[in-house]
């Protein structure tokens, strides 16, 4: 874990990023356990919804890990995970609204994450905004190191 993080340039898991990592970690644990139970006990009840929940769980785990790791490589992985998450929650959300019979049980991303206070649709937007702000530059600093732009 990041010790003496105050001396380092702002990474994706420091400052407000720590909240982001915490919320992603909660969703990773919640989605993993939920989909594991669903697939183990009642898979035939709603196969599509449960497989999508499992996919969402994997995306949350990847995003959580990538957000806590420094470097250009992990930054790209984090952007890819958040983008996949945003596309997934929009696609699954729309599909579940149009054809609710395909989703007899709640998946993490059905109705745009409505069963989870709509956090699943807000989280990737905040994640991508934060990743954009902390994007590594060629000179080793991040955009977050620059003085904040004056708000008009």
């Amino acid at each position, binding site marked *: 874990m990041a010790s003496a*993080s105050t001396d380092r340039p702002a990474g994706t898991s420091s400052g407000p990023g*720590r909240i982001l990592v915490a919320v992603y970690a*909660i969703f990773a644990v919640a989605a993993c356990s939920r989909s594991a*139970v669903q697939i183990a006990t009642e898979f035939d009840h709603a196969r599509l919804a449960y497989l999508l929940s499992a996919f969402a769980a994997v995306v949350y785990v990847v995003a959580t890990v990538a957000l806590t790791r420094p470097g250009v490589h992990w930054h790209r992985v984090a952007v890819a995970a958040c983008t996949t998450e945003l596309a997934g929650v929009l696609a699954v959300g729309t599909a579940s609204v149009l054809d609710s019979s395909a989703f007899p049980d709640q998946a993490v991303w059905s109705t745009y994450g409505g069963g989870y206070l709509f956090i699943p649709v807000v989280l990737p937007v905040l994640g991508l905004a934060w990743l954009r702000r902390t994007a590594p530059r060629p000179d080793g600093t991040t955009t977050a190191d620059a003085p904040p732009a004056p708000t008009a």
Partner: protein
Amino acid sequence: MIDGLAAASIICALLVGAACLLQTWRDRPVGVGLLAGTGATELVLLAQVVGAVVEISRGQRADQPAVFVLYLIGSVAALPAGVWWSLGERTRWGSAVLSVACVAVAIIVVRLGQVWEGTGG
């Protein structure tokens, strides 16, 4: 599942969570007061686990036993994990992280009650 303990843990978690948000707003890191509050909340949650184990051993069953046990584990794991992650950065954001953990605990305990009663997903 003991209703009194559930209510107590939700109230404790929300109070500590509110105190964490206050510290975030005041630009303060997590201090001894917040850690004590978190510890007290954790004790209530542990008492709930003991209560639930006693009731299950007496033959009571949750509607979805596996889900109930997972929520029970989550209810006592969330605060230690939150404290660990918040102490990694002794700034206002550490306090904010602890508030997230507290809200998560409150939600977990509500879900715990729903699974025990067999209401809700």
